[in-house]
């Protein structure tokens, strides 16, 4: 084995009395890609930041970080600055906030070149153009004067990569570089990174929670949990033959299972014809409507009792807007029939008795629960509106039952949301919808904000509740793996229009449109490394 480029020995990072990482060690050889995998709070990002000593001053570091034989833990700040951005560079998760919004692209890339290479003016501009071309920005010359907000998420991440590569570093640290991006863009960025890596021969430390990405980009993988590396080894070995219990748990946590079979004779619960949500674009002094943003543009759909309709699409495709409009939380045009009631023409007040039967679970379990109400107040709120005749004792009993149904201890109902974890909060949000015993539930990305292993639990829970009560779901998600585990029917949306519609099994087996094929390819893609064996 060659001498490692980066060698971490017994690294412990502590914030006060809490150790974020606990004596971790691993090596990265030149040109190698090592993935650091773990769920949120496992200490993987802290490890990445500690390599460049970018942690806040409250963090206490001990151990060794040897880069080309130099210990970065004890290195003086001047030497560290020479390493940062030159020998080791870093890309972050959120491309919007890691670029400075008030500087142009040219200036931001030029700064890196000026600091480490002393390149100025025309030389810097030439190099910037080369870099932008290398990361696949079309027509780079016209993009030099662009500000970050004028670029798409994928383009911003490409600019970040260009900045990171400006000085041809030996090691690139990528901290969840694709998490904030859509699947198809994700695939492009990963391809770009692999391509650049093989061309420049740099090593990469890739931090992610997504095992699919690990399979595609990494040579070796370190599994982290609770600040410790529990297992490390070549990707194929770990995936084929995991040793540690946590690794097995993580691998098994991929959403699995099939939706309950649907009954083709069941009546339609929801019927939507030509649904449109257009937001007017107003210009000028008189605010005349000059056009519309067509968030949802002529969607027809129908969901039978006991079925799950999966709605997939990338961000901005109008899938969440569709869900909101269906529940009349947004004004829309077109026919909406829910449980035999035409609801489009109803006033807000006339909608109220129907709301008991149509509920929604939101994406963000941290934002969808009022931080100032206790759990029993949150769950009991709907009962106060719809079951006014029941007394306090009966209401309490129903809250207890709802909590038991979602697998939470009823004794916790006087606590407040901040005392629960993300997964538990999502269970509370589900209990809030289910306590009313609805017949139709819109699930708006209920698993996106959760860790993989929790995701699988929530999916199992949702499927379980559906079977027990014969519920009808509309499941909105960008994650095709999750949708496959739940949906009978599927619609694929893009730019507010339905691209493809039909039975989920058929679409997954034989997609008809190019867009669906691209989505599926990005989500279920096989490894791209040459010479790597096929993984299951």
């Amino acid at each position, binding site marked *: 084995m060659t001498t490692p480029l980066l060698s971490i020995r017994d690294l412990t990072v502590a914030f006060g009395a809490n150790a974020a990482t606990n004596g971790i060690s691993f090596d990265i050889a030149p040109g190698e890609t090592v993935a650091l995998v773990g769920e949120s709070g496992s200490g993987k990002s802290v490890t990445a930041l500690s390599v460049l000593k970018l942690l806040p001053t409250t963090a206490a570091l001990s151990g060794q970080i040897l880069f080309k034989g130099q210990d970065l833990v004890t290195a003086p700040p001047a030497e560290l600055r020479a390493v940062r951005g030159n020998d080791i560079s870093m890309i972050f998760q959120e491309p919007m906030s890691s670029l400075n919004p008030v500087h142009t692209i040219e200036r931001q890339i030029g700064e890196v070149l000026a600091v480490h290479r002393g390149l100025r003016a025309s030389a810097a501009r030439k190099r910037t153009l080369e870099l932008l071309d290398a990361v696949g920005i079309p027509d780079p010359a016209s993009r030099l004067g662009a500000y970050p907000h004028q670029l798409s998420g994928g383009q911003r991440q490409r600019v970040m990569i260009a900045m990171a590569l400006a000085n041809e570093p030996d090691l690139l640290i990528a901290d969840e570089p694709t998490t904030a991006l859509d699947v198809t863009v994700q695939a492009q960025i990963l391809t770009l990174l692999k391509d650049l890596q093989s061309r420049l021969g740099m090593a990469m430390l890739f931090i992610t929670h997504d095992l699919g990405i690990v399979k595609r980009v990494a040579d070796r993988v370190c599994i982290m949990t609770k600040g410790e590396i529990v297992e490390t080894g070549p990707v194929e070995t770990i995936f084929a033959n995991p040793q540690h219990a946590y690794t097995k748990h993580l691998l098994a946590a991929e959403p699995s299972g099939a939706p309950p079979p649907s009954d083709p004779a069941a009546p339609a619960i929801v019927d939507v014809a030509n649904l449109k949500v257009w937001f007017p674009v107003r210009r000028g002094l008189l605010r005349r409507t000059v056009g519309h943003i067509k968030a949802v543009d002529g969607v027809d759909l129908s969901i039978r009792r006991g079925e799950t309709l999966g709605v997939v699409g990338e961000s901005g495709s109008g899938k969440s807007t569709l869900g*909101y409009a269906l*529940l009349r*939380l947004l004004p829309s045009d077109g026919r909406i029939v829910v449980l035999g009631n035409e609801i489009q023409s109803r006033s807000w007040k006339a*909608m*109220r*008795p129907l*709301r*008991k039967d149509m*509920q*929604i679970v*939101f*994406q*963000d379990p941290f*934002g*969808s*629960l*009022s*931080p*100032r*109400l*206790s759990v*029993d107040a949150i769950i009991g*709120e*709907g009962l106060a*509106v*719809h079951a006014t005749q029941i007394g306090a004792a009966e209401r309490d009993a129903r809250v*207890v039952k709802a909590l038991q149904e979602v697998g939470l201890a*009823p*004794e916790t*109902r*006087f*606590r*407040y949301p901040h*005392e629960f974890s993300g997964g538990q909060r999502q269970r509370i*949000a589900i209990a*809030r919808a289910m306590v*009313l015993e609805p017949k139709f539930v819109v699930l708006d990305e209920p698993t996106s904000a959760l860790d993989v292993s929790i995701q699988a639990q929530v999916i199992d829970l949702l499927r379980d509740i559906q079977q027990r009560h014969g519920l009808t779901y509309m499941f909105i998600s960008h994650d095709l793996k999750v949708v496959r585990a739940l949906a009978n029917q599927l619609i694929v949306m893009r730019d507010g229009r339905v691209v493809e519609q039909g039975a989920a099994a058929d679409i997954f087996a034989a997609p008809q449109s190019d867009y669906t094929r691209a989505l599926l390819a990005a989500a279920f893609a096989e490894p791209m490394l040459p010479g790597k064996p096929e993984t299951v």
Partner: protein
Amino acid sequence: MQQEAAIGASRRPMLSPLNRRRLDNFRRNRRGYWSLWIFLVLFLAALGSEFIANDRPIIASYKGELLFPAFVNYPEAKFGGFLATTNYRDDFIASEIDANGWMVWPPVHFSYNTVDRYQPGSGATPPTWLLTRDEACDRYPLQAADPGCNWGNAHWLGTDGEAHDVLARLLYGVRISILFGFTLTILSSVIGLVAGAVQGYFGGWVDLVFQRVIEIWTSVPALYLLLIVSSVIAPSFWVLLGILLLFSWVSLVGIVRAEFLRGRNFEYIAAARALGVSNITIMFRHLLPNAMVATLTFMPFILSGSVVTLTSLDLLGLGLEVGTPSLGDLLYQGKENLQAPWLGLTGFFAIAVLMTLLVFIGEAVRDAFDPRKAMG
């Protein structure tokens, strides 16, 4: 069944954990915490002014009958006189009651409007403890030997130009200032909250129109309006409160509106709407708690502002009716009687202490509600 009993046994705590942490934060700010206690003691003392400074005894026994002169008006005929109200400070009545029973006096035998017939000298007279006994008792019938020349009849802070006891006027004045301040603060907060909530929650045209109306409204000069009104009618407590309220409610609208604008896009508001919860319930249960932090933070400062406003209006002679005891009136007396520094000094120290206490409490409340400290 046993399990159900266990479920029922876990009771809802009195205070939510967040509020408990805020209370702890407030307690940890020693300065603010002590200021609150001192303020409460002063406020309680001022509320019970009648028991501290009064020209009537609190309880008296006359011919075997128990009387409460501080609360009940007994005609003088009861004690052998002929006036409609009894002057208990009068030597004749006092000796009559003492001969047939007893009286319990408050520590200071003067009310805010009692004129001391025996005050040593004319105009504003200095505090009794600055005078010798002969000087202090100069005007009593028996002079230094007079039993009336005792500590109960002493002027601890001197008298003003109208022979009123300054300590009595200070007590009653502080009471009226704080009560006025509290009433104005609470009323303007309620109106400001409602106006801000409606604007922020409904947004759009409601917001736009309201905002413009407020802009026009705030450009009306409040002081001129007060001048005009006070030249037409003698402003009573409630009239003055009404006029000041017309302009003071605006101060909270901005923050509350901003909190509601921010809050109405939260997902838990969408969740409540999806449950069919009515607008008013959403505003009260989900959005108001967010806005309350800003409101409670501002309240002590609005309170001190209200006290200062009333004081300055009284000083200018635009405030409460003539003869009402108030801090502003005390300052006015001090200005009129420059040879009597105890008037101005009393007024100055009273306002300075009151303002300092309120600002310290306000700071502690603000820090207690600071999310960076309360959440951490």
